[in-house]
Each structure stands twice: as structure tokens, then as C-alpha cells.
């Protein structure tokens, strides 16, 4: 075996791909060739040294810095995004309930009746196909007119002050719910969002 072949086999040995026969030939050559023997020793020493290089540790705040830098909402699902608007939905629900059930029964009744009327007209419109089959366009025009009248009644109802006052308090309620939600989220983030119990290492 010549030294060039031996060098190539040493590389295979370092790669861990050398065959048994080839290894035996290499070892035989190295007994006779000091240069290749030295090369083999150097390579194995070098590879062992690299494999034993220590894995280094970054700073203590490494994880925290990264978690603060990334957008935690990036992979939020659509359902969760809808949940972000939950304060608005809850407030709307509370207000509609309030509007239907509290003071000024006279005005309430008109509101409810007009609302029901508008719904009825819209329901009839949704059966457009049946309307076209059963009657003429004239009937359709009458239904459209009726719907618009109900909607206009609602819009021009003597509610300017009512709407202003209740819109303001509605927005205040939404803001309050959003602040409560964010405070709760902030409290959770203090522990890195991790709600699992963590044991304390008494030796530290």
C-alpha cells in the first residue's frame, strides 16, 4: 500500500466508513510507515478534540429576550381571534337585553313592534322566488316599500339623546371588559404563561 492510499483510508476511518479488511491493511502499513502513523494519530487526536469541544451556554435572559421579541399572536387561530372581540359581543348582548327589558315601556313597545315588523318584511323578501312565481313585481314593490318604512321608522325614532347616552356607556363597558381581560393576561405572563406547578430546587 502506498501513502496516498493510506491517507484516503485514514479519511474513511475518521468517517467511520472503513471496511475491516481495509483497516487491517492500513494498520499493517502504519507499522512500517512512521509518517502515516503520525498522520493517523494527529487525525484521531483532532477528531476527538472536536467532539469533546464544550457546548457553550448563552446568557440567563436568553429565553425571555426571545419570547418578548416574537409575536405570540402569530399562530392564533380564528376562534381565538374571535375571542379577542368577546368583550364587544358580551357588551352588545347585555345592552340588547337592557333595551328590551328596562324603563319607558311605551317607547319599548314601539321599538319592539317596529323591529318585528322589519323582520317580518325581511323574511318575506327572503322568499323572493315564491313571490315571483305567485305574484307580480307590483307585490314585490309593496313589500320593499313596507320594509323600508319600518327601517326608516326605527332610524327616525325620537332617540337621539338616548342613542348618544347609551353608545357612550356601551363603549365604556367594552373598554372595561378589555382592560379586565388584559390584566388577567398580564398576570398569566408573569409566570411566562406557564400555569404548571414548578418545584423549587432547594440547592440553588
Amino acid at each position: 500500500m502506498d501513502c496516498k492510499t493510506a491517507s484516503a483510508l485514514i479519511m474513511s476511518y475518521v468517517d467511520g466508513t472503513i471496511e475491516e479488511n481495509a483497516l487491517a491493511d492500513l494498520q499493517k502499513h502504519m507499522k512500517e510507515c512512521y509518517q502515516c502513523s503520525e498522520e493517523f494519530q494527529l487525525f484521531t487526536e483532532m477528531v476527538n478534540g472536536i467532539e469533546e469541544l464544550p457546548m457553550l451556554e448563552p446568557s440567563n435572559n436568553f429565553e425571555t429576550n426571545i419570547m418578548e421579541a416574537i409575536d405570540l399572536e402569530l399562530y392564533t387561530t380564528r376562534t381565538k381571534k374571535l375571542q379577542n372581540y368577546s368583550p364587544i359581543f358580551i357588551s352588545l348582548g347585555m345592552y340588547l337585553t337592557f333595551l328590551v327589558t328596562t324603563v319607558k315601556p311605551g317607547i319599548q313597545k314601539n321599538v319592539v313592534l317596529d323591529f318585528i315588523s322589519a323582520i317580518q318584511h325581511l323574511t318575506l323578501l327572503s322568499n323572493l322566488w315564491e313571490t315571483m312565481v305567485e305574484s307580480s313585481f307590483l307585490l314585490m314593490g309593496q313589500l320593499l316599500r313596507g320594509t323600508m318604512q319600518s327601517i326608516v321608522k326605527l332610524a327616525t325614532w325620537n332617540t337621539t339623546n338616548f342613542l348618544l347616552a347609551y353608545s357612550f356607556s356601551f363603549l365604556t363597558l367594552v373598554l372595561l371588559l378589555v382592560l379586565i381581560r388584559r390584566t388577567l393576561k398580564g398576570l398569566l405572563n408573569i409566570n411566562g404563561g406557564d400555569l404548571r406547578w414548578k418545584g423549587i430546587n432547594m440547592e440553588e
Partner: protein
Amino acid sequence: MTDWEIVQEIISGNSQLFREIITRYKKAVYSLCFRMTNNHEEAEDLSQEVFIKTYHNLRKYDSNYKFSTWILKIATNTSIDYIRKKKVETVPLEEEIESKHESASAELVYLHQQNKNYIEKAINELPTDYRTLIILYHQYGLSYKEIAENTNLPMSKVKNRIHKGRSLLKDKLKEIKEEGAQWTAKQLQL
């Protein structure tokens, strides 16, 4: 949980679990970045950039590959891009090898006087392209195929560069030993 399961959880909306990924791979990523830059601050900044990139690209992770290989690929590419931008090495590979050899002697004596890990220093002396492959192969245990995918190089080129890198390192080690022997002899004479 396996890496794949954690990734699925994060993509489903549980982003806080990314902290677990960071804990598992921070040493590997930071060590690689440090071997590339030899600077703790730069290595820390690069490592953070690697994890941020990883987080933003989680949907692209292919479970046919090991997560460790994938994140090391991001780390390698980020480090190499940074070094090239910094223009630390502006000469062609071959010229750089020669220039490093010329200035080796004084540094080798310094090595012995400072009692540093000569293998670590020898690796740091290697040009970036060779150093990357040697570290990925011998310290991180990636195969030739994984390194080729990691660095977007043909496998034959990866193999040749690793062999060449090993030869350079071997020559460096030989020089260090010879210099060390001469230095010891001089000390004895004194």
C-alpha cells in the same frame, strides 16, 4: 413531547410552548454561532435571530427531517450571512489559507504561553466555510447528506471540503506540536 408535537402545538395557537424549543436548542445554536464568530455578544445576537427566524418559519418545518438539523441549518445560514456582510473575509479561500499560514508562528507561541485549548484555537483559525462543515460534522454529528441539505452544497463538495479542512487542521496541529517542542526546549535552555 417530541419536537414535532411541540411545533404542532405552537402552530395551533400555543405560542408559549416555543420557550421549550429554545431551552432544548439554545446551547447547540449558541455554540455554533460562537464557533463561527468567536465573539460572545455577536453569538448571542445571532442566536436570538436564529430562534426568531425559526419561530416565524415553523409552518415550513418538514417532519421528514430532524428538527435539530433544521434549526442548525438556519443557524449556519444566518451565521454565514452575518460574517459575509461583516466582510471579515474578503479574500478568496485559497489566498486566505496561505496568509493564515504566514502569520501562524507568532500565534502558536502565544497559544502555548496562554495555555489555551489548541484544537479550539486551530478550528477558529480555519476559514469560515471549512470551519462550518468541520463543526457540523464532528461536533454536531450531522451526516454528509444532512450537511449538504444544510448548506445547499452538493454532497461531493461537502466531502471534499471536510477532507481539506481536516488536512488543514492536521497541519496546524503538527505545527503547534513542533512549536511547542521548540518552545519547551528554549525554556529548558534558559
